[in-house]
């Protein structure tokens, strides 16, 4: 009996070992020293495994190429959100037509796919036409409906020139689909392979035997499993051959699941990883820095220990719920006066954040708009914490303070669960307590269903960021508050205020026809729109958003920082594949 048990035990373990190895890799892989290997964390939504490791199709809706596959691909242009600089890559330049109805892109000579075929205008046109066809039909590919809405047709002028004819005048178009940053930009596919793909929506674009995916990037996957994706540098990368850039020093990229905050910190402390995904706890980042002197952040060891992201956080009201007490503007304003932003930042961030009454991040191109409109914030007292004003407004709205310290009308208090995005739980609890102290029956709610609830409009109020907002001029954030972007309850949206105003519709329509660099023309329209927005107390902006990304200098230096802000440090945060720019700039710490 004893020997039988041991035999069974051995059998189970051996079978498991064989199965693990057989699922992990199918080819032999060369040795690369640790000091030439970049271990980064790929998007895994908190799981200890990478999502869809054998799917490199960016356009597949469940595909997640931030797991590491993004390093196969390159955009026409990168963008530096800190400086506003457009960084040409596969293309050299673009120009808008005078009437802003088309854009002509000039591709870089010498760019090649990893199988040696030239990357040219036919590939760009093919990608566009594939998305146009899908977007006008089933629409089941990422970005296809967006492309079909914004683009009319694409013309190949010559092998290095392609003209994109737009559906209407749009001077911002290049920043939506030609330049890759945050969530914007397209990923190009090789026509010579994809033309034979029967269903591009379900195509996985990964086959080690066929050498797929074929990309133009400097790295190529040699192994992909849920535990890690390994990409080795292609010494025949076109960029070096064409004299565009030197071959990157990073010889191997190992992309591992980001898993959770604690695991990220442990891997960094033990020098097992070189860069994390964005972490949600400043205290944890601080402790990790204290335990490993080789770790740094965008702001070094100084607060806020990270870089500003594009989605400032806010307390939202759901304007689509008709019988909500928040339909009364006085109640919304009372809530705004009840919020003490500085206290939230002191408690949740140890002071390492910035109070923000605006729905905009403080990026240089946007700051000038906000600075020129400070009087509007003051006029509406939008940054003020004043509980006396809260009381006055609630009484004016017909509420009375109950013995329980709650504002009530006909026995009903004002509030309910505040559904909170998982990354914002820290500020959520403080906001809720401030609201309770001010007489609102707020409850903190952060469950796996919270995100769905407020995306679907089932929550009365909620805490979230401004996903898809402005980066270089104020239009994109204001578009969130236009009628076409207000979804009915039950339809999922990231624009969770579900509020619009006819005047803002008009102003945004006008602003969209003005090129983004025309500050003087946009400013008066912006001021008019923000006067309405603050006056209507659409939401309560709270603070800036920061990406807290520890980076390890044991093996690599020249990480992005405040002094050298060439790109955001979070390699795998952005669906545009923006992060693939970073490894090109790393310098080995050890010779």
């Amino acid at each position, binding site marked *: 009996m004893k020997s039988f048990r041991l035999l069974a035990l051995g059998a189970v373990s051996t079978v498991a070992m064989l199965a693990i190895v057989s699922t992990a*890799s199918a080819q032999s892989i060369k040795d690369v020293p640790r000091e030439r290997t970049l271990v980064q964390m790929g998007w895994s939504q908190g799981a200890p495994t990478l999502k*869809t490791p054998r799917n490199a199709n960016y356009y597949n*809706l*469940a595909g997640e190429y931030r797991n590491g596959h993004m390093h196969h691909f390159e955009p026409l242009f990168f963008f530096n959100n800190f400086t506003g600089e457009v960084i040409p890559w596969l293309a050299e330049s673009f120009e808008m037509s005078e009437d802003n109805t088309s854009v002509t892109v000039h591709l870089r000579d010498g760019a090649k796919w990893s199988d040696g075929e030239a990357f040219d205008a036919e590939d760009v046109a093919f990608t566009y036409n594939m998305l146009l066809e899908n977007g006008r039909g089933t629409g089941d590919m990422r970005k296809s*409906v967006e492309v079909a809405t914004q683009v009319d047709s694409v013309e190949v002028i010559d092998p290095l020139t392609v003209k994109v004819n737009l559906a209407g005048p749009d001077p911002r178009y290049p920043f939506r689909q030609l330049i890759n940053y945050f969530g914007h930009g397209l990923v190009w596919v090789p026509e010579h392979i994809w033309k034979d793909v029967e269903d591009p929506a379900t195509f996985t674009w990964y086959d080690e035997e066929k050498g797929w995916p074929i990309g133009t990037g400097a790295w190529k996957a040699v192994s992909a499993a849920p535990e890690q994706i390994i990409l080795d540098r292609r010494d025949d990368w076109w960029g070096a051959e064409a004299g565009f850039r030197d071959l990157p020093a990073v010889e191997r990229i190992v992309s591992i*699941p980001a898993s959770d905050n604690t*695991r990220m910190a442990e891997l960094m402390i*033990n020098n097992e990883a070189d860069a994390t995904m964005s972490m949600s706890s400043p205290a944890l980042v601080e402790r990790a820095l204290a335990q490993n002197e080789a770790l740094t952040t965008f702001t070094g060891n100084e607060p806020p220990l990270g870089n500003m992201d594009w989605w400032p956080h806010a307390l939202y009201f759901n304007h689509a719920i008709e019988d909500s007490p928040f339909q009364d503007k006085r109640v919304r304003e009372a809530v705004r006066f009840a919020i003490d932003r500085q206290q939230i930042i002191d408690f949740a961030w140890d002071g390492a954040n910035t109070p923000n009454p605006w729905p905009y991040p403080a990026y240089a191109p946007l700051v000038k708009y906000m600075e020129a409109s400070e009087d509007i914030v003051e006029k509406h007292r939008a940054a003020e914490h004043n509980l006396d004003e809260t009381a006055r407004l609630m009484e004016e709205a017909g509420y009375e303070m109950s013995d329980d310290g709650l504002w009530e009308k006909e026995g009903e208090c004002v509030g309910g669960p505040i559904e909170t995005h998982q990354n914002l739980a820290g500020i959520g609890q403080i906001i809720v307590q401030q609201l309770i102290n001010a007489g609102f029956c707020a409850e903190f709610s952060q469950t796996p269903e919270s995100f769905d609830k407020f995306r679907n409009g089932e929550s009365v109020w909620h805490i979230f960021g401004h*996903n898809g907002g402005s980066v270089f001029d104020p239009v994109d954030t204001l578009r969130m508050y236009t009628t076409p972007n207000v979804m009915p309850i039950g339809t999922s949206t990231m624009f969770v205020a579900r509020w619009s105003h006819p005047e803002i519709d008009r102003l945004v329509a006008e602003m969209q026809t003005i090129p983004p660099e025309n500050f003087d023309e946009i400013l008066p329209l912006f001021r008019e729109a923000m006067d309405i927005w603050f006056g209507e107390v659409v939401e309560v902006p709270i603070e800036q958003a920061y990406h807290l990304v520890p980076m390890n200098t044991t093996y690599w230096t020249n990480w992005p920082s405040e002094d050298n802000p060439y790109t955001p440090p979070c390699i795998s945060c952005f669906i545009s594949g923006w992060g693939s720019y970073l490894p090109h700039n790393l310098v080995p710490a050890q010779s």
Partner: protein
Amino acid sequence: MGCGGFGDGEPMRILKRLGLLALVIWLAASLNFVLPRLTDRNPIEEVIAQAMGESGGTMQGIDQIVAAYEARFGMDQPLWKQYFYSIWDALRFDLGISISFFPEKVSTLVLEALPWSMALLGTATLFSFIIGTALGAATVWPTAPRFLTWFVPLVMVLAAIPFYLIGLLLIVIFSNWLNWLPSGGGYSPGTIPGYSWSFAWEIFLHSLMPAASILLASIGLWALSMRGMMVTVQGEDYMVLAKAKGLKSWRRFWRYAVRNAITPQITTLVLAFGNIVTGAVLVERIFGYPGLGNLLYQAILVVDFYLIFGCVYLLILTIGISLTILDLIYPLIDPRIRAQTYG
């Protein structure tokens, strides 16, 4: 009935048991189909909203895309049709396509995660069963070494602590303080999987703490239940007879006491194997272990009907088939059951 053989009623008993197994699998599979659909969340919308929202898009055409994917997954069909297709596919072991990992097959995902869970939890469960049962039996055996009784309070304390808390404690001690063991994952980042001793060692090192947390938390449960059974068994007439016959202590211990006391333990062991699929969700989460528990957790987060069905269906089959086999071989393990069954 001949000694060691089966009676005339045996084929009918086997048929009945197999029929019962089919009924249990059908009922459980039906529940498995219905329960995730009770939520008002739509997994396709979840995946699409996530994909579109992260791309900074303006959510254009979301209804159109949802409709296209619902058609792909047959979710535009009436529920009864979906049910029959689901059960028919399950009978053929076709678990369908995952929504959240589209277009990956559920069976591929499950088979990829299963070896990790088998290696970790199969081994840990077997080890804790063997050690716990032996320890529980020995602590009440009169001629066993006295020091064994010291373990009783220790394992009782450990049994009262959830294994994920023990896991956290182990990480702090052995990974953070002593830096002896890796804090998580299946193997170290950058390790190339292969049929080598070094890779086997990697897997072993990474499984040590998660396995130890399960072991430490469950040894006590095995030991306590075995201890109770051994106390009962020692008062039986056959034990007195064995002693009167002058049989050696070890022979009375293993052949008379343990063999009679162990039967309920084996039933529990079979049920414990169900945990290989689901019970280790927390351990796998804490140690970042890429097993089935993690896969099921991810499926539940986005209500991926097909992936949930696949993971839970595996659990149903594992437990159902194991219990049926156990039921059929019980008469071989315990002669008393054979006597009751066949008279």
